[in-house]
């Protein structure tokens, strides 16, 4: 780290400025620092195995083998929040990775190549790589490619697509397939750690991750309150402990304490809560724009706040309690197939409609993320469906989660200003109709 601070002073200084600009409590900042510090310690410890999963991969399998989760995407998000991704991305592009490829991947490869620490996107070499394909091809290709480049073994989990029109029967078939693959995964992990899998230990870990997810989910549910206790710009960092699971006990303690504080302030979850409702309550679909927390502040000044995101909810999937080993495996498989972030179009629209009602939503922003084509598929249909059934404004916003070169301040603000005007006009219309 010291070497980095001296050799890449500009990156470090602008990064520190970027981190300071985040809406962090001292506790959350401490947790973020704890994760990268522990990553470095785990990497330096010759007796500790480390493994690199992608977002949504069932990390509990790694934990059951005492494998520390080195999370390349989480580090890429750190770099994004720090606002230092540009030179890392350019580095990856100079290595031959196309301009059109995922900016998480390029941040990660570039930062690693430049020797940056994980706080700035670099990935300490893990002992093995694992990923799944439900979110994108890139998850599979990226981790396999890194495993090859860094001479480590790779395991890819094949998650079938639960497309529109398919039902329980197909779901059960696909669950069988995933459960069989879990067994292959265990064999892979046994081979590369030299340890035996323990069902008991796995179940203890699952019980914890389920508890962490339930607590986290309840906090998310509180955002139905008027006003909500947390907004997206905070939530996107707040989800780190459950998204990465490097310390499930700490994660549970942290969320439990947060939940207690919220309960004290808000009482039971209810839309008719304590104070003044936000002027505009919004849903954000897609990954956040990591390097532009200022956009969320700018919107907040105009009364527009994000209170629900499929993206953050997707890290609370393990919330249903299970008791037997087999039931647990089938439940994990089901959760992978029905991740809020990757729902098929029918279920995605239904989910939007439900959340719009539950969270008392005034408008929806769909992030047409240049780095995540699969997540941006069918947005036109989603927009048309919501506008038809709920008559609220929907904005498709073109940007990129980690590449500031694809973000244009002027046009983005103009779009949001018009979007706010539309919500305002709708409200005025509703009020006029009432009186």
């Amino acid at each position, binding site marked *: 780290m010291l070497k980095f601070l001296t050799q890449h002073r500009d990156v470090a200084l602008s990064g520190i400025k970027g981190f300071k600009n985040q809406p962090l409590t001292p506790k959350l900042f401490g947790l973020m620092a704890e994760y990268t510090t522990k990553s470095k310690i785990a990497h330096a410890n010759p007796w500790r195995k480390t493994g690199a999963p992608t977002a949504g991969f069932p990390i509990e399998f790694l934990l059951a083998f005492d494998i520390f989760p080195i999370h390349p995407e989480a580090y890429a998000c750190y770099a994004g929040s720090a606002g230092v991704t*540009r*030179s890392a991305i*350019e*580095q990856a*592009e*100079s*290595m*031959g990775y*196309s*301009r059109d490829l995922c900016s998480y991947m390029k941040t990660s490869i570039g930062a690693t190549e430049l020797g940056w620490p994980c706080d700035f996107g670099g990935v300490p070499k893990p002992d093995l790589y694992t990923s799944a394909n439900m979110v994108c091809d890139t998850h599979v290709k990226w981790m396999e490619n890194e495993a090859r480049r860094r001479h480590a073994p790779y395991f890819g989990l094949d998650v079938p697509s639960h497309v529109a029109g398919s039902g329980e029967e197909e779901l059960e078939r696909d669950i069988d397939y995933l459960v069989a693959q879990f067994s292959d995964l265990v064999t892979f992990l046994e081979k590369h750690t030299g340890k035996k899998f323990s069902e008991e230990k796995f179940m203890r870990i699952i019980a914890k991750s389920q508890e962490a997810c339930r607590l986290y989910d309840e906090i998310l549910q509180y955002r139905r309150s008027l006003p909500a206790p947390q907004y997206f710009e905070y939530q996107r960092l707040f989800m780190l402990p459950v998204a990465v699971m490097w310390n499930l006990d700490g994660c549970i303690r942290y969320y439990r304490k947060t939940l207690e504080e919220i309960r004290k302030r808000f009482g039971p979850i209810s839309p008719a809560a304590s104070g003044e409702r936000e002027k505009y309550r919004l849903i954000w679909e897609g990954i956040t724009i990591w390097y532009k927390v200022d956009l969320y502040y700018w919107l907040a000044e105009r009364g527009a706040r994000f209170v629900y995101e499929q993206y953050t909810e997707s890290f609370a999937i393990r919330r249903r309690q299970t008791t037997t080993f087999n039931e647990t495996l089938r439940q994990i498989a089901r959760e992978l197939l029905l991740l809020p972030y990757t729902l098929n179009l029918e279920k995605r629209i239904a989910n939007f409609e439900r959340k719009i009602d539950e969270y008392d939503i005034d408008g929806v922003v769909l992030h047409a993320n240049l780095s995540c084509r699969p997540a941006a598929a069918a947005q036109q249909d989603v927009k048309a469906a919501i506008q038809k059934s709920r008559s609220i404004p929907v904005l498709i916003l073109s940007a990129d989660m980690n590449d*500031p*070169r*694809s*973000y*244009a*301040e*002027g*046009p983005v603000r103009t779009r949001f200003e018009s979007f706010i005007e539309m919500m305002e006009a709708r409200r005025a219309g509703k009020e006029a109709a009432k009186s």
Partner: protein
Amino acid sequence: MRTIGIDIGSTTTKIAVLENDQLLYTEIVPTGYNVDKAWRELLAATLENLRLRESEIDRLVATGYGRNSVDIADRRITEIMCHAAGIVYSRPGTRSVIDIGGQDSKFIQLDADGNVADFKMNDKCAAGTGRFLEVMARALELNLEDFGRLSLVANRAVKISSMCTVFAESEVISLISRGEERENIIAGIHESIAGRVVSMMGRSGVKAPVAMTGGVARNQGIRKALEEKLKLNITVPETAQVNGAVGAAVLARKI
């Protein structure tokens, strides 16, 4: 032996006449919409200025994106080979050539004997090309010469984050309205283009000495920004803008 090279680019058409080893004549005219007319008139004017007849030209090589319209050419050779040959003529020993033209930017690696070892070209996007500069210069109401010169007196480079030409233009306009110094904006634009070009090149393949050719080579600001990113000196031959045509005339002697 008397040879001619004609380089038809998206913005300008260039001609070079070589007699034995001596560069006799060069000229640049805008290409315009009629490619055929551009090179025919340029060739006629050149022959007239040199008081030569077409039959007194031994060979003619055409290059550039309009090369295939030159029906009288003895051969058509890509601009990459021609830029390489041109630089070997004017700056022997060069190992890396950066050529930034109107719609393309190219990076050519030469081996110790002056042969092309490898090359890269930009993806199809105006970022990192002369066109990007033109649009930005227009937004700042400057001609290209002043644009390059002014950035040298900048005290810092403002970060231009957008790479899309249209978005970058609106970003530049909002920087102007924020009262940002013009020279600092220009320096930022240069940095952004240099970043794009360097990513395309891939740092590992760049060997010194490095030369720069193409119309954009006249812009000292870009050169400086590239030098800083590469941590290498870049030379610009006087014939930078006609380098492709010179190379074509050189190659014409060898066919």
